[in-house]
């Protein structure tokens, strides 16, 4: 785009020099400083342009900024997401000699004021709210502006994987290298001791971040026991609803993921590497494609890597939307062009994987951990975390908390730190009820679970799971039966249908949960009897699914239901015995009525009711016919007087 061929060659040389340490001296230092944006020659405006930022309005903002900046002495750069989704769109301004300062909730109306600040250093009242300024030695700070690293959302975090997300231009390999990307890989290539790479990862105790938590080093070692050619696959098929860390890391810092991939491929001496990525992430795919091309240009991927005899051929494969493809054997089938159904193991993929060859599959976040691990060294990296869970974990925090976004903490930190300090707790006037952790394979933890440390074993012990790291906070407005039903509905649809316990079992579980939240008016024949029968057999059925399913999807499918039963039994029983939904969510169990004194007979509710369940004459109080009401709540939304009550 901005590189002419000449510049490209210079860039390539500089990147290689920086990595190999052949050059050196002042020129290189200057190059590094410039690309780290430690200081800038001319003002820069940086826009957070991840998928999340764009959907919050950064796309329109960018278009306006592009027009406004044209022909002016200012650079406009798109960066990834810094992780604070709830404050998007985010824009940073950096002036020569001054600290970079970030703004939140920026709208198209702020363009002029931002430009005035960038060009003339002029602060005004019409600027958007400040998020914080970035600490940088040697630069003059802005007076009276808060520091970003003291912000409640960022201060308690330990950012290794997300360190450069939102700071680095994801389309620039120079910036990535200046910030240290690819340096660990360059060193490992020079040493050329793949065996030692494996040993170091084993020593660090890195475990898979995609869900299972299998020790990464051991997986590599197992694959090395089988004769090549071996294949490496990066699993970027983030299908877990409620998780978006892989997307954000790829969009914000693709070179970190690629470097991790290169290290892993080197460790198992694979010359063929695949990245299996969700087709629903078009921006991540674009950025990754560009990053792969740049890395190839600089001799970091492809043939004769950094002048050695090493070769890594990276190919992108777009997934087609199937949750089960997170399972290793299913993912392999999908790349091979088959239905993504798991097969019995053994043989494990490390023995017989893609096209029958020994294959290692690692998740994006696992790979993104590798560069930091090798830069810090196994010992220093291992110092983070506790017990068998080492390093950091990224969580996608969403739901009913004040601040949502991507959070990275050292493992072993209490869940409370994430929910209450970083997330700011549930909004005022509401009460924390549960945290759903680990997505459809995980579970819901009640308030007392907030003191649990986030590590693989503690979470599993409490009936949840690390999973990929989706963390959804719920308050008293959330019905736990409805949440269990939501996950069962998801799993039931995503079950591949190969083995019967999962295919039929999840269907039955869903039917039982449906029965719990079905109102009497829709129960026919022996409906009530079947409801009780289902409830009584629920736990047994869940046990059968766990024991008899073929793959991890089925084996963990009952987890959301079981964790709800374990921690929220009273609420489930209220649904079953009293036929009430305490959170007033399950529409069938709601009884709507009109407060006669408040109703003015405006007939707004009559028009809104899709079931024709509201009767009454104009200017006189109306009534709801309970038998016809479907509990959709449309009337309540339309009533100008707030006369419609729920019991």
């Amino acid at each position, binding site marked *: 785009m901005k590189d002419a061929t000449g510049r490209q060659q210079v860039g390539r040389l500089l990147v290689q020099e920086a990595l190999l340490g052949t050059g050196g001296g002042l020129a290189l230092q200057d190059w590094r400083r410039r690309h780290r944006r430690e200081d800038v020659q001319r003002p820069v405006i940086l826009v957070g342009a991840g998928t999340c930022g764009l959907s919050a309005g950064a796309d329109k903002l960018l278009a306006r900024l592009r027009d406004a900046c044209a022909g002016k002495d200012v650079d406009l750069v798109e960066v990834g997401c810094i992780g604070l989704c709830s404050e998007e769109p985010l824009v940073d301004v950096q002036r020569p000699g001054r600290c970079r300062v970030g703004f939140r909730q920026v709208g198209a109306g702020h363009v002029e004021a931002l430009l005035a600040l960038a060009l003339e250093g002029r602060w005004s009242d019409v600027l958007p709210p400040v998020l914080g300024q970035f600490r940088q030695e040697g630069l003059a700070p802005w007076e009276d502006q808060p520091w970003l690293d003291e912000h409640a959302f960022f201060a308690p975090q330990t950012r290794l994987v997300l360190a450069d997300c939102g700071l680095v231009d994801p389309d620039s390999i120079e910036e990535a290298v200046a910030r240290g990307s690819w340096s660990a890989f360059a060193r490992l290539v020079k040493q050329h001791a793949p065996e030692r790479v494996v040993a170091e990862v084993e020593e660090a105790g890195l475990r898979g971040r995609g869900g299972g938590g299998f020790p990464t080093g051991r997986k590599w070692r197992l694959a090395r026991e089988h004769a090549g050619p071996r294949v490496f696959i990066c699993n970027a098929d983030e299908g877990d609803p409620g998780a978006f860390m892989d997307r954000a890391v790829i969009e914000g810092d693709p070179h970190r993921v690629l470097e991790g991939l290169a290290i892993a491929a080197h460790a198992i001496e694979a010359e063929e590497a695949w990245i299996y990525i969700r087709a*629903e992430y078009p921006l991540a795919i674009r950025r990754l494609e560009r990053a792969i091309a740049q890395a190839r240009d600089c001799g970091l991927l492809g043939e004769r890597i950094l002048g050695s005899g090493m070769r890594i051929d990276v190919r992108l494969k777009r997934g*087609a939307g199937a949750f089960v493809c997170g399972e290793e054997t299913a993912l392999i089938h999908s790349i091979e062009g088959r239905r993504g159904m798991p097969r019995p193991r053994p043989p494990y993929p490390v023995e017989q994987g893609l096209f029958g060859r020994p294959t290692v599959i690692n998740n994006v976040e696992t790979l993104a951990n590798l560069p930091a691990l090798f830069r810090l060294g196994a010992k220093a990296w291992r110092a983070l975390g506790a017990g068998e869970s080492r390093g950091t974990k990224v969580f996608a925090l969403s739901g009913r908390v004040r601040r949502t976004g991507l959070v990275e903490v050292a493992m072993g930190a209490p869940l409370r730190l994430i929910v209450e300090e970083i997330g700011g707790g549930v909004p005022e006037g509401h009460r924390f009820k549960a945290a759903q952790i680990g997505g459809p394979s995980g579970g819901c933890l009640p308030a007392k679970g907030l003191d649990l440390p986030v590590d693989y074993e503690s979470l599993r012990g409490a009936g949840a799971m690390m999973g990929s790291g989706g963390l959804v906070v719920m308050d008293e407005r959330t019905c736990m039966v409805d949440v269990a039903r939501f996950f069962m509905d998801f799993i039931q649809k995503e079950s591949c249908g190969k083995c019967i316990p999962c295919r039929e079992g999840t269907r039955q579980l869903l039917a039982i949960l449906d029965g719990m939240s079905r109102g009497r008016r829709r129960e026919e024949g022996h409906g009530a009897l079947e409801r009780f029968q289902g409830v009584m057999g629920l736990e047994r059925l869940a046990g059968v699914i766990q024991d008899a399913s073929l793959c991890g999807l089925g084996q963990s499918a009952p987890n959301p239901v079981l964790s709800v039963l374990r921690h929220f039994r009273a609420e489930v029983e209220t649904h079953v015995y009293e036929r009430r939904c305490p959170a007033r969510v399950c529409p069938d169990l709601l009884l709507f009525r009109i407060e006669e004194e408040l109703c003015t007979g405006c007939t707004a509710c009559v028009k809104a009711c899709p079931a024709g369940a509201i009767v009454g004459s104009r200017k006189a109080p109306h009534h709801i016919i309970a038998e016809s009401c479907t509990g959709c709540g449309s009337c309540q939304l339309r009533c100008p007087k707030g006369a419609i009550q729920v019991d």
Partner: protein
Amino acid sequence: MAQHTLARASSVENILARHSGAGRDHLIPLLQEIQEAEGFLSRVALRLVAAHLHLPESKVYGVATFYNQFRFQARGSFPIAVCRGTACHVKGSASVLAALERELRIAAGGTTRDGLFSLEVVACIGACGLAPVIAVGDDYHAGVTPSQVPGIVDRYRRQAQEQGRALEPVAVDAEEMLA
């Protein structure tokens, strides 16, 4: 109608020609490319793909129906995607979906008879911090409530009318609509 089918076949054949000598592992990329070009997978397209890869039609159909990405029906001019991720669910996306179904008088997965709107459910758009989210074409709408749904739909209806039923969705200012 016949002409339409022919036109479709030729565009599929163009794509197939670019994958000459392809093996089975090209099946999913091929289907993806065809869907990108055509909007959906027609019966003709599936037959051509099967012949090209020397696979039984049943296998091609089996793979195509396995994955959520593939559609077998044309989309509306304004395809509406409702995110049903966990965060969106907790913040009420079920009632947003129900409101859309009521407003458009179609179920999720369907297309309105005038061909203007199609409604689909997606597992997760990945914008969980802005839940609940719906996407109309390329426009994202964040923090949608059921009561906003008729307004949003009307906006696109009017837009279609003004342009004599536009075939391509045109951006509408999301901020303005959410205000």
